[in-house]
């Protein structure tokens, strides 16, 4: 049961992610979205995550 639930939920996530990604291009055509802001935001997020993932056993 646990194994089935794991794969079922995993597939559900993949399916919804695929659907959401399939429409990502439509979102990017939204004139209200500022691409430079998007690049800055994703850079800020990626950088912050990298800083948060530093080794603790230094």
């Amino acid at each position, binding site marked *: 049961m*646990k194994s089935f*639930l*794991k794969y079922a*939920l*995993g597939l559900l*996530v*993949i*399916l*919804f*992610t*695929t*659907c*959401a*990604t*399939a*429409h*990502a*291009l439509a*979102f*990017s*055509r*939204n004139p*209200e*979205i*500022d*691409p*430079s*802001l*998007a*690049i*800055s*935001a994703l*850079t*800020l*997020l990626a*950088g*912050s*995550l*990298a*800083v*948060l*993932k*530093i*080794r*603790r*056993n*230094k």
Partner: protein
Amino acid sequence: MKINSNSPPAGNHRLQPSDSFPFPRHLLGRLYLFGALMALEYIFCFANRGLSPGHLKIFGATTDVYGQIPLFAYLVFLGFGHSIWKAQKENILFGRIFFGIHLLCMGAVLSITLATQEGMGWLLFDTSGYIKSSLYLLGTILLALACVPPRGWIRAIRSTGLLWLYSSLAGVAGWYLGTPIRVLWTATSTAQSGLMQTGTLYAVRALLSVFIPNIFIDPASFTIGTSRYLVTIAAGCSGVEGLGLVLLFTSIWLWYYRKEYRFPQALLLIPCALGCIWVLNIVRLCALILIMNAGGSEMAGSGFHATAGWISFIIIALMFSLATQKLSWMRKISPDASCASGEPQSDGTETLPGASTQLSQDRGESPAIRAYLVPFLAILAAAFVSKAASGEFEWLYALRFFAAAIALWYFWPRLKGLDWRFGWLGPVAGVAVFLAWMSPAWFHQQPAASPMGQALAALSPAARWTWIAFRVAAAVITVPIAEELAFRGYLARRFISREFDAVSFSSLTLLSICLSSAVFGLEHMKNLMDWQHLLLGTLAGLAFSAALRWRGRMGDAVAAHAVSNLLLAAWVLGFGDWAQW
């Protein structure tokens, strides 16, 4: 190789060849290379041009057969086959001839697409689109054969059984189910109203009624507001974009670190994150209406509207990341030191001694990353705050200067070990970058229009010169230091090794310089089709990298960057060409 994590930021160790960032030679790497190139070419050729390479009627609806379905089917194929192909370590030859012909095909496809977009009649012989579609298909097949030879493809497909069929079905399902799911946020032929828009509308009303007694609401047009200002909740404002981003981020995160988490417990965090981003969108809309009602319509419409959504996404993504590290019930291995000793967990499970230490060493970043990245991240974070509180004119620009200055001051004990001296090449490279950066502007008789000049003219002299002083100080002092530390000091060396601080600046490779310069160019784009600043930013990155590599001194790169920014500031102030800022 032994690495001392407490070594000075600019180490002098030479890394072994095995530590470098290599061109993928095995099956798995080549499959990823093909997927990445295919996606990039699709985006550059067609996305945001309102054009697609080919269409086909499936189940009564028109779809982009060469774009969406193959891309998403391939994504599923890669995701499920990853662990099987990982074990295959046989070297694969790269088909250079196939790749060359592929480039010619894609060049032709891009030319036809641009000709269609720009209305260049002499190139519009391909009115039906068949030539373009055929060239795109041929180019993609050649790319596939260049990355992986036919025998490799057969091996990849055979080793994964019927995965090719399942992934193909997933690609079609993803496209086909996308249409009914879209009912959630937008009106279609089968649904006259977006369910999410309606839900968001009433949630905003409930929250807004706490602050304002008389609220106007029109469910038919999704309009809500006060007697002074009304806003319409468009499909994009219903929160679906944030939900999509969070769903994508959380799924990729849990997949990438899947060995660290327990499933299905970890999956519970996904709906929690989705709920949080939806609530934050409600708060954003309420704040937008309250700001407009208070008289800040320009700030609400220009700055806060766009930046608040990204700020919400960043907050949720960071909270999700922290939650996955802190919640012991969803982790297989605790990062805490106590786990490394094999002590039982609170839920009775036990970890192997040293397991978390090993995992942490494998996955964790070098502690030196903080000194190199935080000043640049401080500028980005301050920019979001500043833009959210501004209208067309970013009057809080000084925040960026102070944020970077404080971060640099905090990390200076670690950074002062770098060689900050500079020679003649740094300033010369800076002048060259400035000349290249300004070259497009010299072809125009009049400077491009910018609201910055008018906004500055409206300020009092004291306020105007204070703003300009901080703008110049940021451009010449804090931005060059923070960006050179981030792009050359960290990123260029991180492409070579995870222990980036052990890589000498003089040993940067051509690949690491090109990749970090391309990312630097991306950061300077003003929109997705801004090829000019992408190219100029990349060239600037190459020049600064060359200055850095010359004598292996950070001071040369910073001097080059500072000189180019100083000359640009002089140009802007001297000629009133505010669009360059």
